[in-house]
């Protein structure tokens, strides 16, 4: 390992707060590993690529951080993304005849995606709170529903965006502003507003309180159902945003769109240090978690050391190790 010395903390306080800095340290180690395997890892092109690919999962994971912090879970995000993508493509294709292939069509498509996302989230939220059904069950159900809807819309095949409109929509994924791709800009905006919402507003405080102990929240004059429902709406909005920047990438949607995104999003949240049973949420950690997951895949692409097919294995190991490091009692003893 090329990293020794440096971070051996001096005698006084040998306690590294792994909960706090663990994800950042892990990402740094991965980058060093990547660079030592292939110097091209840190090239501008690869970094840009890495960030762009992280954007989808990252944006969805920011939403998931709120849901999980408030003690819920949303398994439907991958299917929701596919369903929204499907509806959006159908809508834009049919609008071409009326409105042409201009920006307006794309704007209407994107707006409807956002509305759909909010409504889907609202449905999840109301079923869990007003319907008093466990979030796991509700979102397992909607996961199946959304997934089958996109299959139905596509008649079992693939929904493709008309070539006429692709040209208009394409830049949303492929263009850059100030050298930074648009998806990355969106990711940054979502991350900043998510962090602000979580750490600087009553809403964020209420999410933490509810996930920590719902009774205490209720006795502290918090409208538990309303806040919980909002977390699902935010999740839906994040999914919609991710979909809006994802659709121009391939210009199509099928039953395999967004498969397993829910697990990647949850994994990013957990790697980032958010507690799965709620009460402690870290947006910054989630961002790092999403980056870590993408970086692993990226490194495997760069080296022949481990087969690319084992990407899932590496991600799985990282999740388990990350949580193990967070749980273990590091008080007093310094790690070696």
């Amino acid at each position, binding site marked *: 390992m090329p990293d020794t010395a440096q971070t051996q903390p001096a005698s006084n306080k040998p306690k590294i707060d792994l909960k706090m800095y663990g994800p950042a340290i892990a990402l740094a180690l991965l980058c060093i590993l990547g660079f030592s395997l292939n110097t091209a890892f840190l090239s501008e092109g690869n970094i840009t690529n890495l960030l762009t690919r992280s954007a989808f999962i990252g944006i969805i994971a920011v939403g998931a951080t709120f849901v999980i912090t408030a003690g819920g879970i949303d398994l439907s995000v991958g299917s929701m993304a596919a369903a929204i993508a499907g509806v959006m493509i159908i809508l834009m294709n049919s609008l071409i005849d009326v409105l042409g292939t201009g920006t307006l069509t794309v704007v209407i498509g994107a707006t409807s995606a956002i509305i759909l996302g909010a409504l889907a989230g609202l449905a999840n939220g109301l079923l869990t709170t007003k319907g008093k059904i466990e979030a796991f069950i509700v979102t397992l159900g909607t996961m199946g529903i959304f997934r089958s809807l996109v299959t139905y819309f596509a008649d079992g095949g693939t929904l493709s965006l008309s070539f006429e409109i692709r040209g208009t929509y394409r830049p949303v994924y492929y263009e850059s502003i100030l050298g930074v791709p648009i998806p990355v800009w969106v990711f940054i905006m979502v991350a900043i507003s998510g962090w602000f919402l979580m750490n*600087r*507003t009553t809403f964020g405080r209420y999410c933490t309180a509810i996930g920590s*102990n719902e009774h*205490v929240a209720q*006795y502290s*004059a918090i*409208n538990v159902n309303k806040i919980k429902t909002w977390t699902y709406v935010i999740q839906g909005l994040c999914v919609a945003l991710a979909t809006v920047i994802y659709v121009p990438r391939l210009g199509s949607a099928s039953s395999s769109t967004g498969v397993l995104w829910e697990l990647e999003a949850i994994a990013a949240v957990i790697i980032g240090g958010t507690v799965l049973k709620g009460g402690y949420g870290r947006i910054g950690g989630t961002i790092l978690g999403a980056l870590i997951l993408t970086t692993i895949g990226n490194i495997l692409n760069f080296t022949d050391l481990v087969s690319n097919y084992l990407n899932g294995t590496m991600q799985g190991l990282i999740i388990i190790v990350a949580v193990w490091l967070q749980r273990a009692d590091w008080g007093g003893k310094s790690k070696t």
Partner: protein
Amino acid sequence: MDRGGSMLVENPIASDVLLRAESLSKSFGTVPVLFSVSFDLKAGEVHALIGENGAGKSTLMKIMSGFHSPTSGRIFYNGEAVTLPPNGQAEALGIVLIHQELNLAEQMTVTENIFLGREIAKNGILDKSAMHKRVVQILDSVGLDISPDTRISQLSIAEKQMVEIAKAMSRNARVLIMDEPTAVLTEAETRILFTQVDRLRKQGVAIMFVSHKLHEVSEISDRVTILRDGQWIATRPTKGLALDEMARMMVGRELSDLYPPIAETDIDADVALRVDGLSTQNIHNVSFELRSGEILGFSGLVGSGRTEVFEAICGLVPMRNGSITTFGQSGRFATVAQARNAGIVYLTKDRKGKGLLLQEGMQTNLTLLALPQFAKRLMLNKKQEEAALARAVRRFDIRARDPNVLAKDMSGGNQQKLLLAKVMEANPKIVIIDEPTRGIDVGTKQQIYHFIAALAAEGVSIVVISSEMPEVIGISHRVIVMRDGQIAGTLTGDAINETQIVRYAAGLNEEKMHA
């Protein structure tokens, strides 16, 4: 004061002493809760342990059943010094603690619970009929008439308790430690329990019995040990020990030391809260008035509906009937937020379950109820929050090692002060405090009583719900006694005394009867 257990230790140890604690001391962190307490338990006796809340009864009980380890002192079982294994593993030795919050798997059957962890099996396959047969025998022997296949969730609390006892008996318990077993039982259920306890005593089981109800102690026990403020006070045969004497030894100090002088109420003060004909699922037709600056005590047995009245008023429990008027404005509150905005706050008795976020620090907890005050358009003002904490720490004398300490690491007394500070952040005009001093030490108790008196003097109206009679008597201007979801009586002036409260709570005095 060190009149510790030396007398007891010097006694020749009778051969039938089964479990004996010698000079046990225990501290939690830096807080000492037991000081060199000795206690012995003979086969075939019921030995009651009494003392005020915070006297150290639970701690002693938990040490003697292995759930806590003593800081110093020794435990002898069958005459041999032992170190009891933790987490209830002492059951294997025949020492069983029946917790107040029962330890049964709600969704499993009676049989499954009784054999939990030591099922009868042949080659790994459960022998259901053998277990069923055995359970029928056991249930019969403890006089419990339920089917072995009933799910625990379908049983009443009393029946659950009997299942716990049956479970203990099936494990050949020789020592049975019961933590306030009658607290949640009705009179009839208590009778059944006592019949069982008596039966067990005759079988030679040693029973340690913790209770607040002195007449029960007098009825069921053979010996009584009194603890006060973590110290051993006396161990006496129950026979010939008067209830007054027990109470005197438990309290051991003049009550006037503990309670602040309470200013006279102004009879002409505004009515802050008027409740008319309030009914919920368990409450029937409750009506009362609370004036500005008044401290109104709510007494009655556990389960008499005291808490539910106020949870209904604050929108935590649905109301069926009745009207609520605050400062002349009528209106029910559907949520705690509405009640808070109208100036009413409720301070729960369940500090850890409903009051504080244990994993959070003082600041998050302090501002949670009144959080909108600390935010402008959703945005939190952290400086304002910090200032509030500094103020609250000074005003309520909250002592914490460092300001970032988590609520779970604070002592009960400091948690209670923090909770009081939390509800006061909402600037309430009516404060409802449920069990204001449950499980906290005497010094902090005194401080809390003074806070309450000071608030009342400022014109805040206060309701004190309490199971501790000296507390209700010591601090209230007026006391309402509840029984079975109704108001049984209202006491004022010199009529506020223990006898009157007990008579109303037990249904000996009926002010009015409702259908």
